[in-house]
């Protein structure tokens, strides 16, 4: 990526303030500028106001929000800079899609499901009178589809959004944004939800287009690793303010602000990690043999076998649709439609929890992906954590209470939170509570299904640290299911790579990361952005 020094910035935002209609501030004076051909990454965790800041660049404010000061100056390719916020609705509309373009976070929601994609792209051109004739516009539609690496033929254009994959949908969104050759593009987390390989493709497309056409890009993301892959400069947002801004290299290498430092440290890195507890390794706690699951013709798991020793952590790696969640649910007894065996310390487990003994149920525990849905919103934390004891032990009430309190201590959750409902806790606290519920019966095997993917990076780091500590304290065997290979060195001893329902590679973390044997593993590693 070449950084040109531009004479004028394509977009300048200064002291932008946005309030809710009730008056509480969302943006507290945000300023940034982007030169043509430059990519500025706007980084922040959820609730930092980064999307609001991005949309404000187009003079758009979501329902309930209103600008409360500051200026947004955009420079069209062929005209004088204009103050976007000072324009009337009509003039703003003329800018949008033409000078200022937007690529939304979730293309599945942002493409009109009832319109063919060709039509949706052509629409932008028509709205802004691009080209002199219908033919010219049709040609441009085909051209821009080609630019984002999609087929440009009539047939493809006649497809509906739901007939495309997520990556294709996102590229249609990008095509739409670039159709009118805008001078500024705002990309709002365009790769969230895409697997790493697709993410790389999309990132490349964006980089190529911005560079080629001299477009100023505002790239909104929470992922610092992505930032390092695409951005020229970075602005770090927190609580409606930009806390640090500078060249990408500089900020990521030598963060000045404490928050930035915290963020950078929290980012899991393929090369980082270490300091993991040594597994005692001799007792084989969990053995899965020849596990297969099919739904009709569709085979979700094919003859999967793996073992986990006590105190050991296995990283089960797979992208969405690889069957990793199915596999962990089979082990937990939540999916009884499988063949093959699951053994716990040499004893075969029944496929369904209903047939397993209380002891077996106590021994295998499961932590769900989202702490927002895994706790009954109508019960207090203590009540939820107590449920396994109530169902699976004969302990009297007082003893159960005691156990719950101990376990909450163990997951570093303040006892004062015990009486609260999940709604009243933060995401990290909830996930700790969920972990407490899984640990309250002192299981031998703990299955963690993407337990950090719904959490911000900084929270993710603390949860991972907690799990490592607990594993050391309790000697629990752990299966850590994730799509993020970057976490490997931070949690796991061994790694098993699942693809299309098959384990394609397995081995100690260090071996697999440094010398992947399978093509797929190599591809994954290559596409994972590093800091």
């Amino acid at each position, binding site marked *: 990526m070449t950084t040109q020094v531009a004479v004028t910035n394509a977009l300048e935002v200064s002291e932008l303030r946005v309030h809710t209609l009730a008056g509480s501030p969302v943006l507290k004076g945000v300023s940034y500028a982007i030169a043509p051909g430059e990519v500025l990454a706007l980084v922040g965790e959820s609730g930092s106001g980064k999307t609001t800041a991005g949309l404000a660049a187009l003079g758009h404010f979501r329902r309930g929000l209103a600008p409360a000061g500051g200026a947004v100056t955009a420079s069209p390719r062929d005209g004088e800079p204009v103050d976007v916020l000072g324009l009337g609705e009509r003039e703003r*509309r003329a800018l949008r899609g033409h000078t200022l373009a937007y690529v939304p976070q979730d293309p599945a929601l942002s493409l*009109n499901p009832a319109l063919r994609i060709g039509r949706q792209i052509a629409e932008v051109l028509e709205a802004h009178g691009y080209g002199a004739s219908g033919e010219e516009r049709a040609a441009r539609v085909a051209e821009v589809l080609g630019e984002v690496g999609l087929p440009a033929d009539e047939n493809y254009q006649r497809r509906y959004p*739901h007939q495309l994959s997520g990556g294709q949908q996102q590229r249609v969104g990008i095509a739409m944004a670039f159709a009118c050759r805008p001078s500024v593009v705002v990309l709002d987390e365009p790769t969230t939800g895409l697997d790493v390989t697709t993410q790389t493709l999309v990132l490349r497309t964006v980089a190529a287009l911005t560079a080629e056409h001299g477009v100023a890009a505002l790239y909104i993301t929470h992922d610092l690793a992505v930032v390092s892959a695409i951005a020229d400069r970075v602005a770090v947002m927190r609580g409606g303010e930009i806390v640090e801004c500078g060249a990408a290299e500089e900020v990521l290498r030598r963060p000045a602000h404490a928050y930035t430092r915290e963020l950078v440290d929290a980012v899991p890195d393929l090369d980082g990690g270490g300091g993991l507890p040594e597994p005692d390794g001799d007792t084989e706690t969990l053995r899965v043999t020849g596990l297969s699951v099919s739904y009709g013709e569709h085979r979700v798991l094919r003859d999967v076998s793996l073992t986990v020793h006590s105190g050991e952590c296995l990283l089960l790696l797979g992208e969405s649709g690889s069957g990793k969640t199915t596999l962990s649910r089979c082990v937990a007894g939540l999916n009884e439609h499988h063949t093959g065996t699951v053994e716990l310390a040499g004893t075969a487990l029944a496929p369904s929890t209903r047939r397993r003994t209380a002891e077996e149920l106590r021994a295998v525990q499961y932590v769900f992906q989202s702490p927002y849905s895994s706790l009954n919103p109508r019960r207090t934390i203590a009540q939820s954590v107590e449920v396994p004891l109530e169902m699976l032990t004969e302990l009297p009430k007082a003893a159960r209470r005691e156990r719950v309190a101990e376990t909450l201590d163990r997951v570093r959750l303040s006892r004062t939170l015990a009486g609260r409902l999940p709604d009243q806790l933060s995401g990290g606290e909830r996930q700790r509570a969920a972990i407490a519920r899984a640990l309250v019966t002192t299981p031998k095997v703990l299955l963690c299904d993407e337990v950090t993917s719904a959490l911000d990076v900084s929270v993710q780091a603390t949860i991972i640290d907690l799990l490592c500590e607990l594993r050391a304290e309790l000697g629990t065997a752990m299966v850590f299911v994730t799509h993020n290979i970057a976490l490997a060195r931070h949690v796991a001893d061994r790694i098993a790579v699942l693809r299309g329902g098959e384990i394609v590679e397995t081995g100690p973390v260090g071996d697999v990361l440094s010398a992947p044997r399978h093509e797929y593993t190599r591809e994954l590693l290559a596409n994972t952005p590093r800091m």
Partner: protein
Amino acid sequence: MSRLIVRRLLVSLAVLWLVTLLVFVATLLLPGDPVRAILGQQATPERIAALRAQLDLDAPVWERYLNWLGGVVTGDLGTSTATQGPVNDLLGDRIGASLVLLVAAAVLSTLVGLALGTWSALRRGRAADHTVSGISLVIAALPEFVIGVALIVLLSTTVFPLLPSVTLAPPGEPVWSQPSQLVLPVLTLALVVTPYITRMMRATMSEVLDSGYVEMARLKGIPEKTVLLRHALPHAIGPVAQVIALQLAWLAGGVVVVEFLFRYPGVGQALIDAVNNRDVEVVQAITLLIAAVYIVVNLLADIVGILTNPKLRTEVTR
């Protein structure tokens, strides 16, 4: 897609069949002997026997059901106990009269409801929106006869004596020959239904206006009118069609009270009379008729839903 529609059609047919079964069984439970009711106290045993045979009452229940069903399928609804004439004759004009009422109320309430709902959604949070919401909330709560009586007091008897409060069809003339008589019944029905359509349209439209693709369309710089017509409206129609259908189907039942109130010579009034007279065949015919309208309207709504959903529409091409 066509498979889906055929499937939906079959379900409707099955439900309709179950309804005929239910209606038939229900009327079997009616107390009183229809033959005695027809012939009266002086009936001789011979005449009773003859009429029983004529009405198939001695046949086994299933055979009577099949006969009745056969009649229904071929459009013969039997003979009314009360008038001793064919039910078809009794209901013929009344069905027409009720349909006039229903269609007029449906068209009026749909148009007004969609317009008000959209208007309200576009002005969300403003005074106009609050006014529309408040009024529709109040009207939606009122039972139809309360609205009807209120309208009579307001527009017919007490405040502004402008309109007739009862329908008086001169013999041989259709009800619509005097449109002023239709105003109050239609207005009552429309007032009952419009708030629901308005509220649903407002809610759906608000949701659609908040959706990613409408925001995206606006961020693409598409003119507001196009955003509304091309991006928002088509997505609101599907869910709202369901509610409209539900409301129209509801109208089929609501006409009963409204027709009774305004002495409107439709099937609803005939149903009340038939219930009072224990006129089995007429009760059967009308409940079946109303159920059929209900089922067909819902079927149409579902088909509209299927047709406006591109995912379902393009299923075959996948």
